[in-house]
């Protein structure tokens, strides 16, 4: 049990490539912190530096008040669970779990007690005598977890531990992992690219993004899951968290007699006062271009939401996907897509022009399945404008962003 503190942590590979830069993060004692981001964002590198498997190029790592930059992995008192399980193939499940304890010259009875206890928790008692190859993927994953648990380390480090399991098992193991942490209360750093895992498991979630020459820091936002969803710090977090992704469109705000309207393409929606309160300093952007973000869940068909002409978008439906209780409605808004700083970089890399992205933006909305919406027809969708998100198009930052300023309403 210990706090893990990362200060200005950075990683530069011998060939000069920077993978991680300026990561400042305090993982509290007993906390379950998730590092999430797309592939190549440096999340695994951060974890491997904490484990001691990668050298630290810049900054410091403290585990429980001890500076561990130059401490070898075996002396850091941490346990790691790998994506591919990394079981010792020639040893039985029992020996796999006992390996670390035996190396530490622990008493035989104590080893037996710990292994059996962990096996009972993970429900693998029946397999203790088997070799890993006689186990299913889910069972192997449990053994890998068991190997970490028996050590009773200061912290667990998990590198995408569930990503090799099939979908159903993954959901089941996710729940069990959450329960396990509730029971052991060991500080855990968990790396994943799956935002659902991040949102369901993490007390707090750190969203990372690949570093670039212009912007040598990975960390985008560290916050509890719901804050990431309702109060994303910038366009990257807004687009990464949530599925389907947040709709983003360039528009502007018009003020008429105390009312504020968001205008994008042919649509003109009255903005709820709550949305204005949640973006302090928004008045400076009146009449200027800004990025409007709307979560797909913040739409509803007019037949269910009631007639709200000032908050209704009339759209031509491209495709609908009926998923039982809800329906996804896909349509286009005739405004050129938002070019975020990342997309700009990407375009610069490939030598393309933003103009090639077309002049329409894809939108998706999640509405109730209680009313039929025919593809190719017209839908009238009422927008929950209190939950609008506004971003500065220059910096990609949320307008008036304050960490912790979050309300689910």
């Amino acid at each position, binding site marked *: 049990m210990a706090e893990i503190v990362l200060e200005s942590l950075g990683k530069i590979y011998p060939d000069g490539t920077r993978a991680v830069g300026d990561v400042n993060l305090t993982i509290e004692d007993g906390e379950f912190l998730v590092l999430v981001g797309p592939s190549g964002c440096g999340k695994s590198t951060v974890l491997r530096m904490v484990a001691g498997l990668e050298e630290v190029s810049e900054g410091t790592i403290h585990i429980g008040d001890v500076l561990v930059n130059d401490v070898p*992995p075996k002396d850091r008192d941490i346990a790691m669970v790998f994506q591919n399980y990394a079981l010792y193939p020639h040893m039985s499940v029992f020996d796999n779990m006992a390996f670390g304890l035996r*190396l530490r010259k622990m008493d035989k009875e104590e080893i037996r007690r710990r292994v059996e206890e962990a096996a009972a928790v993970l429900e693998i008692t029946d397999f203790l005598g088997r070799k890993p190859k006689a186990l299913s993927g889910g069972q192997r994953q449990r053994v890998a977890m068991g190997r970490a648990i028996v050590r009773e380390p200061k912290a667990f480090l998990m590198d995408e531990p569930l990503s090799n399991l099939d979908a159903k098992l993954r959901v089941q193991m996710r729940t069990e992992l959450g329960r396990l942490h509730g029971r052991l209360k060991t500080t855990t750093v968990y790396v994943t690219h799956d935002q659902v895992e991040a949102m369901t498991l993490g007390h707090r979630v750190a969203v990372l993004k690949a570093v670039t020459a212009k912007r040598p820091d990975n960390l985008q936002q560290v916050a509890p899951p719901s804050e990431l969803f309702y109060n994303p710090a910038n366009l990257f977090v807004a687009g990464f968290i949530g599925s389907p992704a947040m709709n983003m469109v360039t528009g502007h705000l018009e003020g008429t007699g105390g009312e504020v309207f968001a205008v994008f393409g042919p649509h003109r929606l009255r903005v709820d006062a709550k949305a204005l309160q949640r973006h302090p300093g928004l008045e400076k952007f009146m009449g200027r271009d800004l990025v409007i973000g709307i979560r797909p869940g913040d739409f509803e068909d007019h037949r269910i939401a009631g007639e709200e002409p000032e908050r209704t978008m009339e759209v031509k439906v491209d495709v609908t996907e009926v998923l039982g209780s809800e329906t996804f409605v896909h349509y286009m808004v005739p405004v050129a897509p938002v070019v975020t700083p990342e997309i700009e970089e990407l375009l610069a890399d490939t030598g393309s022009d933003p103009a090639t992205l077309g002049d329409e933006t894809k939108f998706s909305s999640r509405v109730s399945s209680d009313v039929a919406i025919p593809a190719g027809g017209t839908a009238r969708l009422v927008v929950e404008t209190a939950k609008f998100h506004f971003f500065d198009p220059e910096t990609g930052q949320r307008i008036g962003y304050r960490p912790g300023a979050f309300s689910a309403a």
Partner: protein
Amino acid sequence: MTATTAPAPARSGSRRHRRLSWLTDHWLVKFVVLLIVILWLIPTVGLLITSFRPTDDINATGWWTVFPHMFDKATWTISNYDAVLSRQGFGNAFLNSLAVTIPSTVIPITIAAFAAYAFAWMEFKGRHVLFVVVVGLLVVPLQMALIPILRLYTSGAEVFGVTIFPDLDLNGTYLAVWLAHTGFGLPLAVYLLRNYIGSLPSSIIESARIDGADHFKIFTRLIIPLSVPVLASFAIFQFLWVWNDLLVALIFLGGEPQNRVLTQALMELNASRGNEWQLLTAGAFISMTLPLAVFFSLQRYFVRGLTAGSVKG
């Protein structure tokens, strides 16, 4: 017969797999393989038959003429084996061969395993260059090194007045042969073992490091048990090579009767004018027994998938 008769490919997965299973299932392929095996075995079978024939028959007719009267008692004899085994010093030569071969197999494998682990998993400066140099030594021909090594053994070596190899008077000792075989076996051993050990999943080794293992523990508890297939393959190669070697033993061990190895004893069986070659056939089979035993006892370790279940593939 066409590919359509191959097993249903739907569940076997990749195209490559489908093509391979077609290949191994085809009757023509089986026929060709069988043909090669037979062609390859004919000389050995001939040798075996000859070794059991009386001297006069051997000198009169070929071994293939035995088949019409296979069940005639006069066709077969064990007198050749009798003659070989009762020869002075043949049993001693067998023991000498063992004394040369076992250390000459064990020493290079031990050294190469440590070296291979270091080359594969330890970070140190110049490791790639060093590895290339070691593998590059594969091209040095044994024959070229014989005289320099002999001089090293008999008078040591000095560079600028500094002794880099003392005059140990090794010539004629077992140590001399072991060292020579070790030296010439190492490059291939290091190369083979490094490639195998380097391909073990890195996460297993990282996991062991976190579990508290140092390099030596990782080597003994993980690398060695997981490298059994490559260790067995190289052991067989090296064993056969040293067992069958005549040149190195003749030069470094010398021709003294008490030092003779099996290959030297075999050579002498032939007699000075080559007129006793019927004994050679029996001698050859006697000398083949041990390598065959080694091969069959180690071949079961040639199992693929020793790391199965360790990591998700």
